[in-house]
């Protein structure tokens, strides 16, 4: 008997959720509780010792949040998930489980500006040293690897410039180096791209963007691909050595191919503490139910807007991988065949001042520092999200003075185009 594997849209609605066992409630209840009663003293001991599965305290796990974790893990094709208070928090938890002070990791220099800041500054205070590589020169990843390297990190579709990373090539380098390959899949979502199919070992998300999709909740999530052998080279003591926090348990030996997600939960989240609120988990779960519908519309609209804006006389260039002739068009067809995402940049011939003017003139677009909302969003990175970076870093990150970033919503595309048309006319 063959067992049927459900499709993506079915998983987006159902994975992780089932009617509440006590009340029969069909929507996932918001378990707005800090703590959970134990059946007995022995049950409590089993829970604290990781000997049984269950709920102790919402900083470590929550039944509403758990539905979200399983949902995203299923959509990505991973073995387990762990939610965190934000995408940034999720990154701290991941690296806490991989790095010791003095260790290095290699990261693409084309990243969300917030990640560049986190890696350059906050992580250095922990002694976690980033070594930058260039996704347009895959060999630079290989050259950046040293005996201290513990991981390689890229985005699938990079924010803000629509850079598509050749993930299969980076994965080969990570494999040769014997380190896990981490992919931030926020801009693509698993609807457009599944990094585990291209050699990633860990996927990280900001749920705040397209997954939640409605601009109402901050959240982050880690997915364990179950692909990395933590015990092979004994380089990851959180996974392969007896843990004093848990009376000498070895997590990889005990939990097998979802040990990394467990380590992030019971070592990192438990002790560092950035748990997601169950209310946010509920809102994000509701958003995910319509992910396939929304992503299709986001991508259709973005393609139309990019094609229109590419012909506008005040526009110098457009960086959208969905456009034929774009330098990432072939990579987009390979990695994101269902659409090139809905976040892209373009350059104004009028430079910095023209960018400031455009974001002031729009009436339908919202001028704000987020992406992946149902609403169309606009920002001038040089004056906002990327303003802490040096001019050289801004340009390297695709956020030079002339650059405007759009996140195309799911409104009618004619209205989106009309708003840009009037805002550029002035």
């Amino acid at each position, binding site marked *: 008997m063959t067992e049927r594997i459900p499709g993506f849209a079915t998983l987006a609605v159902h994975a992780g959720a089932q*009617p509440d066992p006590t009340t029969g409630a069909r929507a996932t209840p918001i378990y707005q509780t800090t703590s959970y009663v134990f059946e007995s003293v022995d049950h409590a001991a*089993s829970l604290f010792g990781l000997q049984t599965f269950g*709920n102790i305290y919402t900083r470590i796990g929550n039944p509403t949040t758990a539905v979200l974790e399983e949902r995203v*893990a299923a959509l990505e094709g991973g073995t387990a998930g762990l939610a965190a208070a934000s995408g940034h928090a999720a990154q701290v938890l991941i690296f806490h489980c991989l790095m010791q002070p003095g260790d290095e990791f290699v990261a693409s220099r084309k990243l969300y500006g917030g990640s560049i800041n986190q890696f350059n500054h906050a992580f250095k205070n922990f002694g976690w040293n980033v070594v930058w590589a260039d996704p347009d020169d895959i060999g630079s990843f290989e050259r950046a690897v040293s005996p201290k390297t513990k991981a390689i990190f890229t985005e699938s579709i990079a924010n803000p410039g629509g850079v598509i990373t050749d993930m299969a090539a980076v994965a080969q380098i990570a494999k040769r180096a014997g380190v896990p390959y981490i992919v931030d899949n926020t801009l693509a979502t698993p609807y457009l791209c599944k990094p*585990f199919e291209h050699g*990633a070992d860990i996927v990280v998300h900001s749920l705040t963007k397209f997954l939640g999709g409605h601009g109402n909740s901050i959240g982050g999530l880690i997915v364990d691909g179950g692909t990395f052998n933590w015990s092979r080279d004994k380089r990851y003591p959180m996974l392969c050595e007896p843990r004093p926090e848990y*009376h000498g348990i070895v997590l990889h030996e005990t939990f097998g191919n979802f040990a990394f*997600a467990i380590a992030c939960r019971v070592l990192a989240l438990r002790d560092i503490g950035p748990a997601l609120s169950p209310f946010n988990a509920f809102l994000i779960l509701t958003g995910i139910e319509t992910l396939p519908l929304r992503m299709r519309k986001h991508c259709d609209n973005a393609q139309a807007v990019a094609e229109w804006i590419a012909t506008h006389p005040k526009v110098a260039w457009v960086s959208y991988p969905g456009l034929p002739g774009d330098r990432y068009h072939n990579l987009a067809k390979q990695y994101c065949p269902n659409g090139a995402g809905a976040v892209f940049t373009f350059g104004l011939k009028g430079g910095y001042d023209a960018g400031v003017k455009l974001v002031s003139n729009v009436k339908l677009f919202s001028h704000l520092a987020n992406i992946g909302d149902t609403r169309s969003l606009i920002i001038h990175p040089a004056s906002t999200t990327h303003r802490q970076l040096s001019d050289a870093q801004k340009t390297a990150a695709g956020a030079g003075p002339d650059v405007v970033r759009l996140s195309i919503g799911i409104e009618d595309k004619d209205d989106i185009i009309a708003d840009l048309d009037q805002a550029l006319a002035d």
Partner: protein
Amino acid sequence: MDHDSYPDSYIRGILNTVKTIAMVGASEKENRPSYFAFKYLLERGYTMIPVNPGHAGETMLGQKIYAKLSDIPVPVDMVDIFRGSQYALAIVKEALALKPRPQAIWMQLGVRNDEAAALAEGNGLKVVMNRCPKIEYGRLSSEIAWMGVNTRTLSSKKATIGGIQRMSLNRMSAQGGATAAADRAQREDSGH
């Protein structure tokens, strides 16, 4: 049986049928995976019998420890092998000598011996390799989902409760999300 990928119905069938499980290599140390699995399955209502020659005659979680399978005075439905893969063949031979014979051989996460599996299957026993019965019970009952684990099942029926924070294995579920990348990595690791 394809030992790289078991249908849920096969695993559920074994866990729903067997009642008495002999665990070869059960450890009394609280931080060992065998202790975790033993305790969990005992709490889920299975009759658990520890087998460990170094501790024969002692008790573990109230259950008497035997030196070898043939010392167990009651019929055993399943033998759970918590020893290195190289010991699995000898343990299967011991299991096949039992009267009555067990219905199933289960080799723990990380344990795989295809020769031992073929011998057991040739004698009509069901075989599971490189899986943990605790994890599989937790997955099919959906308890493990509290840890964010992808159970690879979906259900539109409410789960049956077996106590506070405890779900019954008798949950109606359909196949859910797959873990293709992890399955590939496992096949590569085991050289298949």
